[in-house]
């Protein structure tokens, strides 16, 4: 036969039309690309979260350095006293250096260390000549200088930079390279970017009248800007201290400005005036101007309260040196803490905090909260100088060996370390340090040269230590876990993750404790004891609960349930025990019915329980609540929770009731039931039911007796339930969240558990029933074990939902990052912190990244939980297939 002959006689085309082929290829390409792309995009989410969070743990890095030799430009020489100031402009590209010993003001280009401007001071009559002490307030140009004759005065020192509009840029400035500067009349012009030029103006001028209350040579000065005018302090060689506040008022009529000086002189203490007088005293004001710290070179510190500047009060004396001489002191950014360096190379951070053993009348004590050991523990070198960052709690310390370290006062860590003494750097140990305005440059100077580094500190305030371990924050009485991120600019942000993690665990735990038993038991009933036609109607209703938006649940929990429970706390607590008790009682009464009636009514059990059992239970809890309150909590539950009145007995009784109930059940099933089984042969059913009721009553009494006994024991050894699981009641608390969350979690667990239970092969069930087991025995001994893994995966998925739930927690938990396990206190969770704080966090800031870390934590946690659930479910599916 001809193989090409067609059956119908018509010739058929045996090739696919190109159009079809093309369509097929195109569809394959589009679907494959689109499909893979979509899946990749979704999975990339985790990668992105990681990419945002990861830089937090990047270590700091330091760039190249540039050195300027001051010998070449007429430096003061190594031996001259270093009355110098160092700083940078706003961009951090130009450094300024005021050298009072040499009488010069310089501008340096930090890119290569070139001197842009080098100008003598004298010409403008700056009034700074002959100064013996100088301090510039970091981040501003406010300064104070002191002189050999005991006079001191405020001044403006530093640079001011302004952007130049494009039209005003001179031709020669246009020609300079990016990052380079050109000297001009009173400063320099800097090209900071391709299209940006800035004018940098040098300011060095004394302002206001000098104060002449001190007579000795001024050895240290300090200044802090307050709203009315600066607060200045100075100490002279005799140890006498002068502190004064200058306020300038403009006379409305004449337009003349009148400067008022209020202040006081603190005479040198006897022992200071004596032998130690030769040693300088370090003097520092707090940023807010309420405290004055004086630390003598031998390490004796004094703290004065200067809330009233004309009446300084000595608060306390403290030891600042730890045995060694104090060599350098700096006020850390924020103005509440001092970093003190000593001759043994150790740097300590001091601040005041409320302490129980404080001797000062304001109840505060100076504490050395952080200690940074010497750079080289084997060969400690004297700390020569310290400098604080103008924008964070980072500060720099240099020692006599030339090691410059960047330290972080909150984290208590050494961020980076670099050596300043080398052939191409400084000849001697740094005498002065400075950090650039943007915290990107570090400057160190000895008398003869200045070296600068570019650096990137990364996120020094974040480390696994600050996230997960207690940190001693400024002015706190001790190390704590704290999460507190919003505040003004100088606020010390507290990025302790633990309160949020505890809040998350607490919300999840309590919600699951309530929701899991309810959901699983409900699933057992609906899959094993409910008529299929009922079941098909009830299941969608509960599933509908799952589609209720969480914001609705949160609103119901926070604004409806919370006030309701607050008013009726005792009935609610009673309900936890009374309602199950009522149901059990109902079951035992039910057994009294004749068998025939019971069989006929079996299908109506759910409505009977729901319409009769539950309401009666609720009624019983409402009526029994006052009694319970009187018996256990001295008549007022809320007062008892607040710790007023009553012993700890009541709380323990409630806590032990479930345990006691389990124990009582065990005793009944091990001892009473076997005995009854033997005795009851041939009893009429009614008699057996009555006896069973009696046993139940006995069990209840036994339960209560056991719980009371255990509670009495714990109370006798002076343990109180308050402070642990129970505590003061706040309206929005963990119990409310657990209620609200259970609305979201119950349907989830119920649906999956119900599916798992009802997908156990029917032949198992039939076999069990056929062998004579009751439906209950079948459900518990056959179906439940077969469905265990399915139920477990249901719980895992419920857990995943509870961990990340946001709106319910946001609306019903009160959002206070408190760390305790009380059922009745508020808390904050990771998700709520993200929701409330992320919109306000500046992009790229450590706050932003920490919140992304929280998101990443939630992501990985739920991913792991769900994967475990999925794998277990898969195994379960296979096993039930094999059964």
């Amino acid at each position, binding site marked *: 036969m001809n193989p090409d002959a067609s059956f119908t006689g018509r010739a058929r085309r045996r090739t696919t039309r190109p159009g*079809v*082929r093309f*369509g097929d290829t195109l*569809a*394959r390409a589009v*679907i494959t690309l689109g*499909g893979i792309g*979509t*899946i990749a995009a*979704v999975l990339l989410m985790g990668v992105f979260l990681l990419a*945002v969070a990861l830089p937090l743990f990047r270590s700091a890095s330091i760039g190249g350095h540039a050195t300027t030799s001051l010998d070449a430009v007429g430096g003061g020489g190594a031996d001259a006293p270093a009355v110098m100031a160092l700083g940078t402009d706003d961009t951090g590209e130009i450094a300024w250096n005021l050298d009072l010993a040499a009488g010069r003001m310089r501008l340096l280009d930090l890119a290569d260390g070139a001197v842009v401007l080098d100008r003598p001071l004298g010409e403008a009559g700056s009034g700074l000549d002959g100064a013996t002490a100088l301090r510039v307030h970091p981040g501003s140009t406010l300064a104070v200088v002191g002189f050999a004759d005991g006079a001191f005065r405020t001044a403006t020192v530093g640079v001011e930079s302004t952007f130049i509009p494009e039209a005003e840029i001179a031709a020669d400035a246009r020609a300079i390279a990016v990052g380079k500067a050109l000297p001009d009349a009173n400063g320099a012009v800097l090209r900071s970017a391709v299209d940006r030029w800035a004018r940098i103006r040098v300011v060095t001028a004394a302002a206001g009248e000098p104060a002449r209350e001190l007579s000795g040579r001024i050895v240290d000065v300090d200044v802090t800007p307050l709203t009315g005018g600066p607060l200045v302090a100075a100490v002279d060689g005799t140890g006498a201290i002068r502190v004064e506040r200058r306020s300038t008022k403009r006379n409305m009529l004449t337009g003349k400005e009148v400067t008022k000086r209020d202040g006081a002189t603190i005479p040198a203490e006897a022992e200071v005036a004596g032998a130690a007088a030769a040693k300088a005293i370090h003097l520092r004001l707090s940023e807010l101007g309420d405290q004055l710290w004086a630390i003598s070179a031998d390490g004796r510190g004094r703290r004065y309260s200067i809330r009233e500047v004309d009446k300084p009060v000595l608060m306390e004396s403290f030891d600042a040196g730890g045995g060694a001489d104090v060599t350098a002191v700096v006020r850390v950014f924020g103005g509440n803490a001092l970093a003190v360096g000593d001759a043994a190379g150790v740097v300590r951070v001091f601040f005041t905090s409320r302490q129980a053993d404080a001797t000062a009348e304001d109840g505060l004590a100076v504490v050395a909260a952080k200690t940074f050991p010497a750079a080289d523990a084997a060969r400690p070198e004297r700390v020569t100088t310290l400098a604080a960052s103008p924008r964070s709690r980072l500060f720099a310390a240099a020692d006599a060996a030339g090691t410059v370290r960047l330290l972080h006062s909150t984290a208590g860590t050494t961020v980076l370390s670099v050596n300043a003494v080398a052939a191409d750097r400084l000849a001697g140990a740094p005498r002065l340090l400075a950090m650039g305005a943007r915290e990107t440059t570090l400057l160190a100077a000895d008398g003869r040269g200045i070296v600068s580094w570019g650096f990137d500190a990364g996120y020094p305030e974040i480390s696994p230590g600050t996230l997960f371990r207690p940190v001693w924050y400024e002015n706190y009485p001790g190390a704590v876990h704290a999460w507190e991120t919003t505040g003004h600019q100088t606020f010390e942000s507290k990025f302790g993750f633990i309160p949020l993690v505890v809040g998350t665990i607490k919300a999840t735990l309590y919600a699951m404790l309530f929701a899991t038993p*309810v*959901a699983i*038991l*409900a699933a*057992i*009933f*609906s899959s094993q*004891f409910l008529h299929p036609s009922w079941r098909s109607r*009830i299941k969608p*209703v*509960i599933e509908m*609960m799952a*589609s*209720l*938006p*969480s*914001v*609705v649940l949160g*609103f*119901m929990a926070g*604004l409806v349930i919370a006030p309701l429970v607050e008013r009726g706390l005792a009935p609610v607590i009673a309900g936890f025990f009374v309602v199950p008790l009522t*149901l059990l009682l109902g079951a035992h009464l039910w057994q009294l019915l004749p068998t025939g009636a019971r069989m006929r009514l079996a299908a109506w*059990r*759910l409505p009977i329980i*729901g319409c009769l*059992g*539950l309401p009666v239970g609720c009624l019983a809890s409402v009526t029994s609540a006052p009694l319970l309150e009187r018996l256990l909590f001295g008549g007022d539950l809320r007062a008892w929770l607040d710790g007023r009145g009553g012993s700890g007995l009541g709380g323990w009784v409630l806590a032990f009731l479930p345990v006691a109930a389990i124990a009582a059940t065990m005793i009944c099933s091990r001892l009473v039931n076997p005995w*009854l089984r*033997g005795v*009851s*042969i*041939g*009893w009429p059913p009614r008699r*057996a*039911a009555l006896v*069973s009721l009696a046993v*139940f009553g006995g069990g209840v009494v036994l339960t209560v007796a056991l719980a009371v006994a255990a509670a009495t024991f714990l109370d006798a050894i002076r343990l109180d339930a308050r402070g642990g699981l129970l505590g003061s009641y706040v309206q929005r608390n963990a119990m409310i969240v657990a209620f609200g969350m259970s609305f979201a979690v119950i349907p989830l667990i119920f649906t999956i558990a119900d599916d798992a239970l009802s997908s156990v092969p029917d032949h198992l069930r039939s076999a069990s029933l056929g062998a004579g087991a009751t439906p*209950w*025995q079948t459900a518990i001994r056959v179906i439940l074990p077969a469905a265990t893994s399915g139920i477990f995966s249901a719980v895992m998925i419920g857990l995943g939902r509870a961990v*990340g739930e946001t709106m319910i927690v*946001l*609306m019903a938990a009160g959002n206070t990052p408190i760390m305790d396990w009380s059922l009745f206190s508020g808390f904050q969770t990771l*998700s709520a912190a993200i929701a409330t704080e*992320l919109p306000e966090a500046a992009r790229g800031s450590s706050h932003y990244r920490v919140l992304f870390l929280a*998101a990443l934590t939630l*992501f990985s946690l*739920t*991913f792991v939980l769900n994967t475990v659930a999925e*794998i277990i479910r898969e195994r379960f599916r296979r096993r039930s297939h094999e059964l």
Partner: protein
Amino acid sequence: MSSDPLRRRRSTHAALAAHGEAWVWLTGGCLALAMAMIIGVLGYIVSEGVATFWPRPIELIELTDGRKVLGEETGRDTAPDGTGRRLVRTANFELTGKHFEWFDDGEVTATTRPAEATVVERLEGGRFQGFPTRLLHGDEVVATGGEEAWRGFREKHPDVRRRWREAWRIDKGDRGELQRKLRAARLAVVQAELSAGADSPAGAAAAAAEKAVAAEVEAQERRLDERTAELRAGNEGWGLEFTTAPGESVVLPLADIVRAWQPNKLSFAERLGVYASRWGEFLGDDPREANSAGGVFPAIWGTIAMTLIMALLVAPFGVLAALYLREYASRGPMTAAVRIAINNLAGVPSIVYGAFGLGFFCYVLGGSIDELLFRPALVADGQPTFGTGGLLWASLTLALLTLPVVIVATEEALSAVPNSMREGSYACGASKWQTIRRIVLPRALPGIMTGLILAMARGAGEVAPLMLVGVKKLALDLPIDGTFPFVHPEREFMHLAYLIYDVGFQSPNSQAAKPMVFTITFLLVAIIALLNVAAIWIRGRLRRRYVSQQF
């Protein structure tokens, strides 16, 4: 006693215990509790939501200290000592400093329901309750006496209201339009300067154009000013004088009165009229008083717009991914892993998607778009266009959130198509794509639709991620409106679910806002229930179709 030896050994107690009746009752109790919870919550929301706008009678309460208070009883409870007390909405905030007050039953000597007691809803300041006495027009007294004044008010108020509405429309719509025009012209100038320099001919042309636009805008504004002044003059002086329960006399400008009724006098039909009018305002108007009164139209619109755009985004990608996984990808551990991963993503907390949306869509993607396309706006007033939350980013974030739901549902629908149909199609010589397009997809469509609708229901109720990517408490400029280009994907918008959080938890007068929250909740739950019912209905249809088509 039976003679059967087996029967003799049977223990009645053991038989009773085997039934585990007590445990069954416990499990039944849990199921009943779960049912009670859902029915209780839904019932409460529905009853509160439906009842909010129903005009309830107000009472004149006389107290033992001689004080008289006019108010609507909104709640009762029992103090611990057993005496009852009532929460009364006393309104008149500017006079008493409070909206609500508690009264012990012991304090109250008499309650009456005076027929002329009037409730006034105002533009601001909350409700006012009192007795009308005179209708005033400037210095002229138009009507005196409760009856007369009320009749006069009923007559005049619609006119005043219409004028007010027109003036409001001009202020909100027309002026906003002019400002937008002006801003567009200004941005064009910046654009020209950026691209060609300030002195270039293009820059000069743009500057000239801006000047022309500015002149035109000014002229039009003057015209609008005249019109609004005329409208306001028409309303000027009209006022209704009230006496409050304590006897103070207060004149309310008619233009400030949104609606007034005398609840004790209303017939059922009139009551229904007030009810319908308040629902009408709720569904169709802008919010007033920090969202605690007025309407929620922008939020409804925002919710719908966001949900629809999300559905448009999620449908093609979800179906593509599912088609790939089910029809094209080779079956192996890799595909299984991907499937598990996608399943898991459905369980990742929504707030994580929100963080991703803010970080990636708004900041990375939006920031780049701004740099590339909207530099003028960035330079001119430092305002990001796409670099901040907006409709597009919110829709995209929610699309990502619901994508796993759609993929899983679609996959299930695809796998429910019997393989015999595919094989039949191949046997007839159809290509793979032809089979998918003509055989598989049509059969799977109802399942896909179900997944999509469930995704929409989830998206409509999700709010945590939206708080991060573009939902605002007040945004009257609709994201889809009548001005070119009609869809404004960069605009921030309002959302019903967020409104619940905002009004319920951040409102200064939370007690008065509570009924509003219930109404919004009712609306939202109704929308979601509708979507769910639709999904169930489609699922039912799908099943029927398969039963009849199985071969």
